[in-house]
């Protein structure tokens, strides 16, 4: 009996030792991969930040109105945002590769699925980001043009443009992620079509006077309009 207990304990110890002996090198490899990843991520962040500063991306971002969108979302400058994104994406990649070395059942499959999806996720995020910037820029341009031309309801026009571009960007991002592809395309077509039809009906039935004013202003006798403001120069 005593011998059996000792043998059992020895067996358990040997198993444990064997497990540790098998796990420890993998764990060390994982740590090495993650630490190397950290160094590589820092190096990449430095490289991207320096390159973007040299190309004066922040100035371009200011001019395109992107910086303001970032400030509104309490985000750092474009250069900082991109360099930090590169840091975290590369570090996440190394962590996942490191975890896959541990050979934990089930985890490997999830890691591989995530790694496979990573480029699509990044592209989808970029599509949304640039969609936001373009929507902001174009809606502001439309608002300014409409206000300066004296059109009625300039905000409606501006918001319509913003809304259509958002819908387009969200659809493209979901399409990139292959999320319910058919449903998304059908939903986009329905929303976009309904919006256009709604606008056409509203303009045709409810906005006859507006349409007349618009056409007269743009295609009618311009001299009458111009006499209101004296010659600027």
């Amino acid at each position, binding site marked *: 009996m005593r011998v059996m207990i000792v043998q059992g304990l020895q067996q358990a110890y040997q198993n444990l030792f064997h497990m540790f002996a098998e796990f420890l090198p993998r764990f060390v490899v994982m740590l090495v991969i993650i630490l190397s990843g950290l160094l590589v991520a820092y190096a990449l962040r430095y490289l991207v930040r320096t390159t973007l500063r040299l190309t004066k991306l922040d100035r371009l971002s200011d001019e395109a*109105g992107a910086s303001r969108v970032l400030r509104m979302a309490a985000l750092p400058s474009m250069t900082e945002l991109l360099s930090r994104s590169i840091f975290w994406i590369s570090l996440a990649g190394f962590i996942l590769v490191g975890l896959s070395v541990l050979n934990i059942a089930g985890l490997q499959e999830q890691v591989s699925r995530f790694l496979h999806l990573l480029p699509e996720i990044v592209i989808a995020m970029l599509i949304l980001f640039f969609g936001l910037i373009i929507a902001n820029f174009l809606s502001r341009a439309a608002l300014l043009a409409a206000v300066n031309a004296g059109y009625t309801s300039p905000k409606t026009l501006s918001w319509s443009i913003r809304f259509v571009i958002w819908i387009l960007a969200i659809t493209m991002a979901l399409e990139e992620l292959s999320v319910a592809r058919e449903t998304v395309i059908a939903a986009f077509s329905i929303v976009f079509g309904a919006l256009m039809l709604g606008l056409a009906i509203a303009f045709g039935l409810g906005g006859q006077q507006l349409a007349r004013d618009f056409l007269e202003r743009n295609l009618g006798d311009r001299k009458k309009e111009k006499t209101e403001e004296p010659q*600027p120069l």
Partner: protein
Amino acid sequence: MPEESLLGERYPELGRQLMSVGLTDLLVAVPSFNNEATIERTVQAIEESYQRNFVRDRVVILNLDAGSTDRTTEIVLNMNGRRSGGQRGIMSLRTVHCVTTQYAKVPSQSEALQLILTSADLLEAKACAVVSATTTNVDANWIANLLRPAYKQEFQFVAPLYTRGKYQGLLARTLLYPMSRAVFGCRIREMYSDEWGFSRQLALDCESQNVWKNEEIRARPEAWMAITAMASGYKCCQSFMGPKVAPSGPAPDLVEAIRQTVGNLFWCLEKFESFWVGRSGSDAITTFGSEHDLIEEEPPANSEKIFDLFRSGVEELESILASILTPETHARIKEIAALDAAKFRFGPALWVRTLYEFAAAYHRGVMARNHVIQALVPLYRGQLYSFLLEQANSSPDEIEADTESLCREFENQKPYLVEQWKAKS
């Protein structure tokens, strides 16, 4: 040599025509685009001026056409033919040469000016002038008034002065002149004008600068040239021309005029920052003829519409104005927008403060620069309506006194511009 590459590579035919002309003393350039109604009179006025005022000098007329689809080019070529029946494009009447060429497919004042400067460099012209083909009443005296100071009196830049109607040129009177005077310290009234003169030295300085691709000077390179002259310490002057008849056809669009001129002014503020930041006050410059000449005219009809556009602009653009203006200035503008139209007044102090904050916002790039400039349009309309109300019964002298007072307000508040300009976003 820049002239060799531009004329040799892009405009070899023009280069050959200029080489045939030889060295000249004076050059008058006429950029044109579909000006068949006015071009003949303009070229005749230049010839007349040459014959009457510069008899012994070697002179040339340079017509740069932006691809007119009407008879503009044909008229200029026929004028050559009428004189000598000689070679197309080059013609001599005593010492008068007339060279014509197509320089672009769409009008671009900066491209035309670059070509004028290059041509002047090649011909070694001592003084040059640019005259607009859209002006309907150019006469021989105008040409002499623009050329003489640069040719005979050692001035490097010659700006014109015109007789103005009481309500004409208000963008220049209430914004461009006072702001450029306060910032750059030089009292040139008509910096944004279609006619101006300059010396060979200034032409060479400007020609060598790498600015020609900039969108900001595409339509209005003359103000950049004037500011270059100021920043280089060159002597500038003004010459009185008399009345200027506005070109026929639709009046210029206010939004486009503001985009071209104010956009150019703000861009020049950045480009010449080191020149103006430390300066204060302003210097008078030599003026040949009357310094200002205002005549009575009918006020514009339906001016309440201008106030409506101001008020709706302030309301609709609230979020845009909030990111351009300081909270105090924005609040004050909203306050005056709520006033009754008859009691409305856009005071000079608030107007100056508003403009300086716009200039700083343009500099900091709080949004697309073109959008900053466009957001100014409703506020300018407010200032315009205020002017129309206040000056309805004012005499020309009273209006002139008010302009001077506005200029002093701009000068007094210049430290605020510097402070805003240097502030971090």
